[in-house]
């Protein structure tokens, strides 16, 4: 079963995807790695970030792995390239 989530892109990921936010429909039960692959399918240039990116789901960091996310409608998912604040 699918649900709609808001995806936010920051920094290099926003440049590569050429979009800063979009609403997409994804499976409610999905691993973080599958979710990332969904995003790469939509924006192939994002693959340049593989192995140097994490996601944030509902503002909590999630590594790209086989952990199952339970997404709800309206959830905020963010693509988080390596940080460089400070």
């Amino acid at each position, binding site marked *: 079963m699918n649900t709609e989530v808001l995806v*936010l892109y*920051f*920094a*290099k990921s926003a440049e590569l995807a050429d979009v800063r936010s979009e609403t997409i429909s994804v499976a409610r039960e999905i691993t973080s790695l599958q979710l990332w692959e969904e995003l790469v399918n939509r924006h192939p240039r994002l693959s340049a970030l593989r192995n*140097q*990116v*994490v996601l*944030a789901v509902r*503002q909590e*960091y999630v*590594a790209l792995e086989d952990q199952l996310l339970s997404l709800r409608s309206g959830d905020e998912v*963010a693509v*988080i*390239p*390596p*940080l*460089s*604040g*400070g």
Partner: protein
Amino acid sequence: MNNCDNDAKDLIKLTYDKLSSDAVSESVVCPSCGAISMFIGTTRNNFEGKKVVQLEYEAYIPMAEAQLKKIFSDIRKTWPSVRHICVHHRLGVVPVMEASVIIGISSTHRSESLEAVKYCIDALKAAVPIWKKEIYETEGSSWKENKECLWGRNEVK
């Protein structure tokens, strides 16, 4: 006696305006404390021989604020004499030599605020979703990566 025991302040500002160390130090002054420690990060004028004209910062603002609050909470557990904590981080264009971040922490014992400031900037660089792009005089721009960030390439700087 300690006027500020009951209202320890956690102050966060992400702003497009120029930062002020006076504003940060005044916001953490505490009548029963004797010590304020501060850290100021400023933009450097060069990277690997390339002249940096300016920096641009962007943030995932609500999550950045939430992550900073977690860091503040960790600081209060580790250094109980810490009173007020303030972080101002600038966003958008930051010219060379201007501050990108100012941290101010007051405490009754100075060693605690000094250690807490060091922890705070290290944790900020590792875990707060803020990004910096360096814009070079001649060769375009590049997104930086903090060596403290666990999922970066951790290139030699």
